[in-house]
Structure formats: C-alpha cells, structure tokens
C-alpha cells in the first residue's frame, strides 16, 4: 500500500501517514488497497482522501477453511467458524451438527458434499465498501463532518471524499479532481 499525504506540514503529514497505515490494517484492508492519497488544508479546513482499491482476495469457500475426515469436517480456520456454521445450518438444517469446537458432523449424500465444498463462506468484496468507509471515517478529522464523494472513473475501483466543517465549495470540488488527476498522472494511482 502506497500512502502519500500532502499539505499539512511536516509533522502532520508524517502523523497522518502512520494513521492511514494503522487504520487500514485495523479494518483489514491493507493488502487490498493499492494507493492512498490525502490532502490536508487546515487553514481552510478542507481534507481530501482518495483510495484506489487493488487486488481483492477471491471468495473463501468451504474447502478453504475445512478438512474432510469421513462424514466429518474439521475446521482449519476458526475465524470463519461462525459464518460456516450459520451457512450450513441454514442450508442443511439438522443434518449438520457441531460435534465439538472444531468438528462438524454431516449426514449428506456424496453429490451434496461436493456441492457443499463449493459453497461461499465469505466474500471479501461484499463488505469492502463498508470497511473502506469505516477506515476513512477514522482517518479524517472528526470535525470535518460535511462530506462530498467523487466517484471514480468506470473500470477503476475506489473512492474520493472531500471533508470539511464548512459547506464544500465548487472551487474545492474542481481542485480535488485536479489533485487526484495529478497524482494519477505522476504516480499512476488514484
């Protein structure tokens, strides 16, 4: 993840770089974000943050998180256990039972087991936007509550948000597009 912070002075730029790093690690997006650009203008109280999404991991399927042992499944990644159990109970009801913390017993036909292995337990894309917005909310100064989103061009994933405590003028909307465009040209990012 490449982070660039401008306009806030030496200390603020360094501090916001580390804030961006830590926040996106906390929301679990560090490896999915290609580039973060932030522009701070404290004098006019305008903050622009632009995020470009890179590679998003493929959906996690049942066979990714379990190991088959006869008519049982052993959960190998426990963090997915609640989602996996909810999915299996929803689909197969009482034919699937949790025998112990990591062991699931099932009474299914062989074709059903093949289909079961292909079920999607968790798709990282489904809550990507929510997590990204949560991260942005944690990074931007708390007082900057007036927000203006700028959508990305088609074919690109990500978002840009202008935030301020004052109404956001058209001048800033234009300037934000210029800034992001400039970054895209110079760094090939957002």
């Amino acid at each position, binding site marked *: 993840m490449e982070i660039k912070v401008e306009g806030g*002075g030496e*200390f603020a730029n360094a*501090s916001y770089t580390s804030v961006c790093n830590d926040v996106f690690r906390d929301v679990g997006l560090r490896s999915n974000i290609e580039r973060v650009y932030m522009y701070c203008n404290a004098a006019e*109280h305008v903050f622009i943050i632009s995020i470009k999404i890179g590679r998003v991991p493929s959906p996690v399927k049942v066979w990714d998180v379990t190991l088959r042992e006869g008519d049982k499944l052993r959960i190998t990644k426990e963090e997915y256990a609640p989602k996996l159990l909810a999915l299996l109970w929803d689909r197969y009801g009482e034919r699937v039972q949790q025998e112990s913390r990591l062991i699931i017993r099932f009474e299914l036909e062989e074709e059903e087991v093949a289909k079961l292995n292909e079920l999607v337990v968790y798709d990282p894309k489904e809550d990507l936007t929510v997590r990204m917005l949560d991260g942005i909310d944690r990074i931007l*100064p708390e007082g900057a509550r007036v927000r203006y989103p700028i959508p990305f061009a088609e074919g690109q994933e990500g978002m840009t948000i202008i935030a301020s405590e004052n109404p956001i003028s058209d001048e800033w909307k234009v300037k934000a597009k210029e800034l992001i465009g400039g970054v895209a040209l110079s760094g090939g990012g957002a």
Partner: protein
Amino acid sequence: MYKIMMFSGGVYKFNELREIVEDIGGFILQSMVMQTETMMHLAFPVEEEPRIRAKAKELGGKLKDLPLGGAEIMVVVPSLGKHHAVDPMCDIAEFLRRNGAITDMMGLARGVGRRIAQMTVEERAIINECDAAVFVFGNFKECIEEKVKLCEMIDVPYIIVGGPPASDVDLPHYVGGVGRRTSRMKRKEDIEKLNEMAMALADVLEEKRIELEEDPLATSPLFIKEMIEMLLTPKATEEFPIVIHMDGLRVKVEAEDEEKIRDIEIGKRKLSEICEIKKSLYEGYLLEILPEAVAGEIF
C-alpha cells in the same frame, strides 16, 4: 510545606516507615500491599526528607519523587471518539498518574473541528473544580491556535498538548510532538515526550503552589483528610473516597453524610467555618479551604 514521594519495596518492617511518617507529622496518602510488595504515597515536611530516605534505604525500598502528587488533573480531549481515545488520551493520563496525580478524563460534547469547537458552561465548571487541566489537541497548527479560545475560558492552570513542534506554535505552556496517535506511546522518544509534558505541568502547578504559600490556607488539605477519615471510615469497596487538591479536597460521600462533615472539629473551629463546602458537578462534595487571612486561626 509537604513533600510527596512514593515508597515501593517489600513488606518487611514497612510499618516502621509508616510510624516515622506519622511521628514527624506526615501523612499516608495511599497504601497498597500486594502480597510481598508494598507501595505507599507519603507526604511529609520537606526538612524531614533525609530521615525518610535513610529509613527507606534501611528497608531496601525505593523512593520516587512525585512532582504532581496531591493534585487532581483533568485530561480534556475534543471528543471521546476513536480519534482521541484510547491513544494518546489514556497514555497521557496514565503517565500523569505515575507522577502522582489523580486524573479525570473528559471528552467535550462539541469540542471537535476548528471553527465549530465549543465548550459548555457546565464543562468549564467541571474543569475548574480540578487543580489543572491538560488539553489534548491534534496535528494542525491552525486548529490548535484557534482552539486556544477554549483553554482561555478556564480559571485553573493548563497546558496544551499537540502535534506540531513547540518551535512552530507560539503559545504559552504548549508541548508539541504528540498529536494524533493510533498506537501506545511506549517507545523511548514517546516516554521522553510524556516526561516533558509532566514537567511542563509540574511547572504550572508550582506557580499555583507559590501563590498558595504567599496567602496560606487555614489548614492543610492532608490534615482535613485525616480528620474526615477518623469520622467516616471508608467502606470496603470504596476507592479514593477523598481526593486531595492543592487548595482543598473532593470528598466522595453520600448526601446524608454532608452534615456530619460540616460539623467536624478542626482545632477550635468547625469545618464549615474554614471551608466552602459545595456539591460537585462531577462527583461528591468540594471543600475549598479558605485562606488563613479570611478564616482566622484554627488553634
């Protein structure tokens, strides 16, 4: 003039130290025995320091100076959101406690932003109940310079902690280099920064202490604390029912005990004659000790 220090050591004969402190007219502010370890906050006359040091050495314990001992400090942040808590707000409060202060923490209801930052009358009154305040602001010089208006509204001494280095910000009692944090301040340079902050706070408290020495109080808050504790023994689960201020006390008692406190005899006077007693907006009752010049002699 009392000196406040912390003794930490083993339990062997530590009662002897307690007895010496009481014999020389000192007070035990806090005492904690944890299996084989003890920790005590002691207040004793300054001139008796060599005697206390000698006893601590004999017992094989350590004495640490507490520059903020006997003061209640309010740590004020613009809000209690994750932008300010837990880092650096709790790091700062913890460090102040390690230096002997009793700390309270406050998130302002409308403290965020630059132009829109405000402080309510009630918040200001609660901050004024403490001995000093530490305002924790963010990374931008422009915002800090605008937000000083909040600090200037309060009557107690304060320091401001922010991001930009002190050389860039032209404000009194400002400590830079902290700013927004997302991790604990535990590295060497962070600890140095916190030390610098604690020393800046000790300096502003020293100014208040000198003012109090010029117009001395009718009696010491430590003495009143002991008199109250003789009358109202703390309940088993209570912690810090009495918090010492530089010029008074915060007594955390129920409303039914208020009359008992008013009638406590201090020398030949009643406590209500030498103190202004009022209900705290935050917790318990505030006892503001009147200067000797106003209250007269008590013995």
